[in-house]
């Protein structure tokens, strides 16, 4: 059979009626011509010729502009798509500077070791062609001891990651004197990854880095690269605490791209179960590869990668038996040599199909792939475009296809293609002044250099913190300086990915006498993830929690094969401590500020796999958790609610459904996990709260001073109070989410309404208002009316 070109293949697909039936959207993005500029005159001629040899005859316009800004000492953030040559925007100025002044140093920060290695390889090949004496090294946990000294003294470009910078480099900065005294550039790649808790920590690591540069008398230029998000400049400026120039218009030419959102058909309408995304994925990938169309497939788990790889290898073993690499898997965990081999195989078109987890989303140029199939939504719009960007770099047409899985997030995207294709609503939010996080880094900073009176670190009153630490005995004040006065090493006491560094260790006791630690769960999640009797899942294995030892911080588990998973039930109540901002909308009072949250895990549901049936409940006896954090909330005056012709019970159902929807939408806007924020429905003054009990909704009333559970919804004195929906940060001290939600309030509600109205389910489902068992059958009908009330349509 004759082979089709990609154009022909797409055309054929568009005529396939049964395929089209399940398509949620097809968008043809037109090709874009390139916008070029000549190399500026100051670029070293040898460097120019090497870059030309590597394919860059001229520079893209955005590259030329960016490097001009950088040369003038301005900090920049680049937000151009994959394959637009962002790497050149930093490698060129860095190499140029080193050629002009051989003692120049640069620091490259990447989020993962694999990415660091790939980038090192990239700059290394430029240097080799330049035949210049420029040394680049990665410096991370794997760097052998005897290599470390040489790297510190001689490395022109040092490539590292945030954890190494935090615990390995900054606290030993005197050993890096040569680097810091000559540091001209700091490159931060994948800036959008530094959000939430990780981002808040990272911003503080940068504060310490800048402080140390100041000690050595340098003021390096920051060059940041980010995926497309709604607020790249704001994000960069928040991390760097200085003005940053934004470059988001790419001058790189792109091929025409057909983008398809495909939703596998329903196989069980009642329960809402769809055909597995793997089925169309493998058929389509096989078809493309058979037509010699080079394809990359992204799957959301290692298991799925293995399954697809095996299927495709088996399929082609008959036609291409000699070639083991014709179709191959790819993982960040593969050794660098193997990864280089696969990448070169892709460039040479010896490898026609590659299946990967998101590792290749981060990585260097792999050549001219034509098609990209994503099996399951990668979790954010930014990630999806990064993956899709792997197909069709230069000419012709390219294809990107997102195949949805059954989970709510995927389904949301399918039902709301506008959300996906319009301007990104995804924001990167951080709170570098979270008190707990800030405190840790002030300690680390004091270890690195004593603090002097009048110094600033962060947005809080530094001297108060220093006095506090003095009282605690870790700092000692002499004249006007605070010195580190303890034996410990503060960088070891903090993990950059959590607020409370004390984790609960999960111990597998399946084999008697051979207990082993299989995971660590951070303290904040432990109560819901590993309470007694919970089913804990790790790498597709199930474990039953026999005992959670709170004092010893250990969870003892045993491997099981169960047909259900558990979902913890938490009673939450929220009390307002301070309101930072508020405004009155047509139908509600909207605010954000500081709250006190008390949460108690009271039990759990047993939920059957695949069908999501409820198999029963269990009790849990755990202490309350009390924390202060930040929240966004809005209150609806009860008079307005009365105007709707619903019973009090129905109104509560509706509000619960709305809270559920907003919770999930907020997580999407923030590119956060649904566990990073939480919701509560109650009364602003803290008199009563709605929680999910075993037999349905429970109203917990605090009116008499002590909590009182009222099972009878209609008896709830809801008519006497104004209901409030809270969406708060799950972490003590707040992570910076609530301010954004406050600003996006109207958009969130409009999106919620649209989502619910469009959802094809009958009465409600996990994709819109939540399982009907929790929100009742009328929720779906009521919520849109409530929203109309709030935003005043």
């Amino acid at each position, binding site marked *: 059979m004759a082979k089709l070109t990609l154009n022909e293949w797409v055309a054929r697909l568009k005529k396939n009626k049964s395929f089209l039936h399940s398509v949620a959207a097809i968008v043809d993005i037109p090709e874009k011509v390139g916008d070029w500029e000549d190399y500026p005159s100051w670029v070293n001629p040898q460097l120019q010729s090497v870059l030309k040899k590597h394919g860059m005859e001229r520079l893209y316009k955005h590259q030329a502009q960016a490097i001009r800004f950088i040369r003038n000492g301005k900090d920049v953030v680049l937000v151009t798509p994959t394959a637009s040559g962002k790497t050149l925007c930093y490698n060129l100025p860095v190499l140029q500077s080193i050629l002009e002044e051989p003692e120049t140093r640069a620091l490259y920060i990447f989020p993962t070791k694999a990415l660091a290695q790939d980038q090192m390889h990239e700059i290394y090949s430029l240097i080799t062609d330049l035949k210049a004496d420029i040394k680049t090294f990665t410096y991370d946990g794997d760097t052998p001891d005897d290599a470390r000294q040489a790297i510190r003294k001689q490395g022109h470009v040092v490539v590292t990651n945030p954890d190494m910078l935090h615990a390995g480099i900054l606290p030993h900065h*005197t*050993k890096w004197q040569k680097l810091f005294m000559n540091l001209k550039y700091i490159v931060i790649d994948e800036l959008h990854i530094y959000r939430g808790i990780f981002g808040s920590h990272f911003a503080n690591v940068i504060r310490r880095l800048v402080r140390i540069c100041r000690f050595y008398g340098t003021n390096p230029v920051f060059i940041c690269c980010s995926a497309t998000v709604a607020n790249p400049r704001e994000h960069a400026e928040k991390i760097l605490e200085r003005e940053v120039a934004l470059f988001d218009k790419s001058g790189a030419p792109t091929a025409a791209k057909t983008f398809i959102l495909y939703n596998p058909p329903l196989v069980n309408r009642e329960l809402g179960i769809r055909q597995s995304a793997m089925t169309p994925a493998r058929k389509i990938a096989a078809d493309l590869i058979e037509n010699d169309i080079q394809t990359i497939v992204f799957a959301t788990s290692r298991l799925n990668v293995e399954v697809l790889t095996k299927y495709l290898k088996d399929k082609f073993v008959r036609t291409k038996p000699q070639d083991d690499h014709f179709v191959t898997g790819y993982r960040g965990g593969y050794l660098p040599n193997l990864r280089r081999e696969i990448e070169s195989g892709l460039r040479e078109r010896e490898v026609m199909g590659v299946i990967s987890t998101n590792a290749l989303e981060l990585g260097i140029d792999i050549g001219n792939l034509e098609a990209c199939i994503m099996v399951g939504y990668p979790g954010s719009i930014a990630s999806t475009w990064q993956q899709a960007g792997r197909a069709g770099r230069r000419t012709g047409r390219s294809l990107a296809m997102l195949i949805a899985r059954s989970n709510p997030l995927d389904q949301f995207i399918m039902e709301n293609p506008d959300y996906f294709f319009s301007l990104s609503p995804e924001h990167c939010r951080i709170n570098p002044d979270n*008190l707990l996080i800030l405190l840790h880094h002030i300690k680390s900073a004091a*270890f690195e250099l004593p603090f002097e009176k009048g110094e600033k670190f962060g947005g*809080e009153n530094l001297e108060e913190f220093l006095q506090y630490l003095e009282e605690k005995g870790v700092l*000692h004040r002499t004249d006007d300086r605070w010195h580190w006065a303890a*034996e*410990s090493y503060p960088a070891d006491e903090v993990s950059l990915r959590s607020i409370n560094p004390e984790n609960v260790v999960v111990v597998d006791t399946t084999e008697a006498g051979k207990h082993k630690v299989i995971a660590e769960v951070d303290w904040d999640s432990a109560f819901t993830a590993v309470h007694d009797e919970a089913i804990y899942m790790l790498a597709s294995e199930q474990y039953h929690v026999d005992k959670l030892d709170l004092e010893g911080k250990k969870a003892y588990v045993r491997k099981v094969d169960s047909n259900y998973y558990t979902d913890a039930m938490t009673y939450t109540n929220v009390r307002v401590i301070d309101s930072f901002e508020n405004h009155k909308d047509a139908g509600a009072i909207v605010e954000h500020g500081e709250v006190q949250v008390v949460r108690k895990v009271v039990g759990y549901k047993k939920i059957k796999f695949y069908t999501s049936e409820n198999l029963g409940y269990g009790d849990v006896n755990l202490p309350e958790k009390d*924390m202060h954090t930040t929240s966004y909330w809005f209150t609806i005056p009860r008079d307005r609610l009365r105007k709707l012709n619903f019973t009090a019970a129905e109104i509560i159902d509706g509000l619960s459904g709305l809270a559920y929807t907003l919770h999930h939408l907020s997580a999407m806007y923030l590119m956060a996990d649904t566990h990073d924020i939480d919701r509560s429905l109650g009364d602003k003054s803290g008199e009563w709260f709605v929680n999910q009990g075993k037999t349905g909704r429970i109203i917990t009333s605090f009116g008499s001073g002590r909590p009182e559970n009222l099972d009878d919804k209609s008896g709830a004195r809801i008519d006497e109070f104004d209901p409030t929906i809270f969406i708060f940060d799950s972490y003590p001290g707040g992570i910076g989410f609530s301010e954004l939600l406050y600003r996006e309030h109207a958009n969130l509600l409009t999106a919620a309404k649209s989502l619910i109205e469009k959802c094809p389910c009958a009465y409600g489902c996990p994709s819109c208002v939540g399982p009907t068992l929790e929100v009742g059958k009328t929720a779906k009908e009521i919520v849109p009316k409530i929203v109309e009330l709030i935003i005043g349509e």
Partner: protein
Amino acid sequence: MNSIEKLKHLTGEKTKAPEKPSSKQVQIDELRRRIDTITSRRLHQHQSVSEKKFDADKINLSEIVAGEETENDHGRFFLASEVVRGSSRHGHRNIRETFGLDMKAAALLANEPSIAYLNSSDALFLDTETTGLAGGTGTMAFLIGLGWFEDGQFHIRQILARDFGEEKAALAYLGEIAGQKKFLVTFNGKAFDVNLLTTRFILNRLKSDLAGLPHLDLLHPSRRILGHRLENSRLATLEAEVLGVEREDDIPGWEIPQRYFDWLRHRDGRLLASIFEHNRLDVISMATLTAHLTEILTAQEFIQNSDAGDYLAAARLLLKRNGPDGAEKILSMFQEQSCAEFSYISKKQLSHLYKRTGRWREAVQIWEEIAATSPTDFSAISELAKWLEHHVRDYRRAQMLIEKALDQEHAFSAEERGSLLHRLQRLNDKLKTAR
């Protein structure tokens, strides 16, 4: 609520009810208890300190440690000075015996040839006491102990930064002294002390060439030469087992950082006294240890308080650095000794040294002695067989030797048996062609 109150709430610190003693009071009581335990220990024999309990009066440092406040361009610090007479005893030696070190031997111990051209008065002995072992920029060397030889005496200086603000002046003084000396002697200084001091110089924006000085770090040669008979290579162990130094009530190393932090808050001299003493003894021990090690390398005869194994280890070191001639003197010493009392391992090591330096007669003698008492000792049999085969060329005797050994059942491991058979085969072939 201000930030700190919020912070305290977040970290779960609750405010206590007023009837409990204030935290400050609790701290002082705790400190009082600690000081009491300290002062109830007897201190250095030259200084008598009344054992009365801690009362409100602090004791000044200068009343308890022989030193005084000193000033230079960078500020003030506390300096304790001492001149140790040659006749003083430290362990097995008089201090006088540590003068006039053999510099070639010292260079060998340090693996640093330039030291051979220096004098022992060019040495700067250095040991620091620090606020922690973590390393990194947050650790300070609050006490720097120095020692050197001058005019027939051993001078000691102990530089104390009484507070963080005095560190710069203390380091500057160290820099001055180091500038007059030409090489360093430390114990584990290469990995720790010098790195730390270099970091402190940078943090205080002072220039220093400490890291560039030739450096004899006694840890490594001690391990090499004495490690075979000691359970670890700590200075304390070496002191006790080899140098014969006994310390009374020595402060354990792990207590030192906290002691200094307590001093910062309470400025009672008694807190630091034992640290000074500990540091002082460390410096003197390094001097006598250097003397001891160099003497082993240059020995003409077995000296007291040494072990045959020490000399063998030294011989191996000399062999490595200087080639076959290096171990001459030591091996001559052994030639005059009966090795009957040596341990098996020592005998083997000695025989190898003899072999490598061409002293076949002595080597064979040992192998024969070993074979006589243990007829199935693989290495002795092998070596004798090799010697007979390649040097004496008496294939017959070699053959008989191996056959006799192989006759013993269960005597050798499979590998050893294989090796002997292989050799036997070769001998048989040679004997055949000879006919």
